[in-house]
């Protein structure tokens, strides 16, 4: 199978959906001739023109709100927010408007809107351009939250997100944009809310998503050398969450470590642990469930400090050894 980058996979998903449905369009800062802050939309202006690859002023509240207004009147906008940290500038339109309209107006309207943003650290972009804030969106009923870890997942999930009639927060992992992976030429879609087993194992389940998937796979390879077989469960979508997949894996391995790049305290890992504890799976646990997340600090600039902030394969391995 051919291999393309995560960046190309995201672009292919948008292009295919824009060819398929004339109501789909892309808007955001510098998405046109510049190709988007991370080069994701490079070349799209030439194919679709400035009406459908729409460059915006630096006015996140205005153009995210315009996305909401366009969505409730028949369009299917994709918004490129560049750095996902900028959602803090337009929180009202995401939290109070997009998320609530379908419920608040008794299902008389829906909000088919995708908000793409590049999330995560490891690029030296420091405190305001490196965050993983997915758990904040998961806490708001009405939003769906997707964090893909491979080119294959990114393409299939984004195509589904664009066809979804609800607002979807699609958090691309900026450190993964250059990663290559197999993506078929023929069209495919991946459902939202289905986890994917990225590695089979019998001794412990590493429950994770996004950029921590490759970190967990690296840790699992290392542990395999010691005779420990770790299963790696990539959630892919946090809301909706694939609880059956979590339960099935934990009931098989009897041990779990939850790993995410976001700050560990009050992070999404707390929800995953709760899902396990608040169920039959609890009785089958042979050890406490561990969390490995980001340190409780803003993301620092210095490269060594930044590396220390996020979970490393070594920290993941240490957590596994602690409960075996």
């Amino acid at each position: 199978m051919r291999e393309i980058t995560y960046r190309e996979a995201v672009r292919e998903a948008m292009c295919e959906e824009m060819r398929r449905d004339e109501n789909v369009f892309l808007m955001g800062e510098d998405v046109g001739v510049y190709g988007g802050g991370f080069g994701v939309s490079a070349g799209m202006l030439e194919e679709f023109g400035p009406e459908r690859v729409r460059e915006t002023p630096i006015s996140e509240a205005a153009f995210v709100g315009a996305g909401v207004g366009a969505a409730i009147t028949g369009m299917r906008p994709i918004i490129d927010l560049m750095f996902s940290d900028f959602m803090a500038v337009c929180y009202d339109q995401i939290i109070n408007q997009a998320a609530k309209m379908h419920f608040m107006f008794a299902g008389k309207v829906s909000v088919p809107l995708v908000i793409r943003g590049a999330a995560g650290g490891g690029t030296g972009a420091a405190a305001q351009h490196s965050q993983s804030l997915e758990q904040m969106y998961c806490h708001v009923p009405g939003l769906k939250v997707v964090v893909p870890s491979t080119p294959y997942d990114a393409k299939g999930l984004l195509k589904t997100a664009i066809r979804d009639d609800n607002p979807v927060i699609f958090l691309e992992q900026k450190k993964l944009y250059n990663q290559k992976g197999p993506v078929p030429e023929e069209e495919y879609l991946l459902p939202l809310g289905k986890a994917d087993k990225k590695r089979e194992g019998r001794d412990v389940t590493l429950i994770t998503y996004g950029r921590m998937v490759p970190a967990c796979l690296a840790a699992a390879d290392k542990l395999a050398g010691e005779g420990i077989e770790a299963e790696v469960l990539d959630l892919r979508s946090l809301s909706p969450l694939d609880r059956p997949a979590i339960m099935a894996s934990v009931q098989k391995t009897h041990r779990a470590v939850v790993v995410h790049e976001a700050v560990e305290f009050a992070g999404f890992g707390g929800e995953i642990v709760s899902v396990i504890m608040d169920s039959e799976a609890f009785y089958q646990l042979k050890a406490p469930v561990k969390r490995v997340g980001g340190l409780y600090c803003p993301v620092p600039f210095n490269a060594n400090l930044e590396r220390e902030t996020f979970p490393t394969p070594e920290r993941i391995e240490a957590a596994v050894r602690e409960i075996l």
Partner: protein
Amino acid sequence: MARISGRSLLSDRGFLRELMVRMMTVNQFEEKVLELFGEGRIHGTMHLCIGEEATGVGTGAALKKDDYMLATHRGHGHALGKGADVRAMMAEMLGRMEGSSHGKGGSMHICDFDKGLLGANGIVGANGPIACGAALTIKMKKIPDRVCAAYLGDGASNEGAVLESMNLAAAWDLPVLFILTNNTYGLSTPLERAVRNTDLTQRAAAFGFPAWECDGNDVLAVYETVKKARDYVIREKGPVLVVEHTYRTSGHSKSDKNLYRSKEEIQYWQERNPIARFRCFLTENHIFSEEEIDKMHEEAVQAVADAVDYASACPEPSADSLEKDVYAGEYAGVYGDGFAAGAKGGQA
């Protein structure tokens, strides 16, 4: 008493009658929900527009049925002015299943998508960006003869979202009609303490589009100004700002003790309320007699009373579907295995 404009409309008695009945209906609606609140039949809070009836009714009359419109938290008059169903609105106030939001929205989230009302909004200033999006749909789909009107108040005029959306509408030539009802106070803060330049029409000049202002207690002036503005939006394919000067004689919300203004000031404006002024205009010009106008009043009282009867007989919504109503389309619950409350603790 201030003069009323609209000499050219004098011959259209049916239209003038409709304006009066609508203003009276808005007023009756507000008085009635206040009464029901006092009786404990409506809970929560509400933001009444008593004294501002001419803005919603005059503006709504100048819009076309298919025009989009976004109302504010003080939106009962905006909604009724656009033709929203008074019975569905009252049922929503009482939190009933037949309410416009099936009892899930309440006073601040009235909607009527069939009449172009894309929802009232509880967040001050949030309408601006959403209006840009609805106008973008009009533009991208090349829908002829349609605009999107966004109501905002003097308070909202200092929200970043409003200023951003004025710029976006101008930069993209979007058919947005910004309707700024200057009701003198942002909650309790008078305009002159919130801004240095109290001429809010100049906001439009800063972004390169025109603005008109009018006496917002003169329903015909409001109608004619918005009509002119709407024509401009259609003709010139770009946004316009209309500033309607009015005064809220009711409190900001249920908790308002009127500590920021005098009884005399409120009384001054009560005497100049838009319904009394229009009554005076209609009788002085011998368009309608006092008796005929009393009959319009009775009609409004009856329409609102009928809405209360209707709403009171409607069932309360069921709590069974609360979690199912959050998302459109197929959805198996946030845990993917049914709905949280019922499915928790189940086997994999």
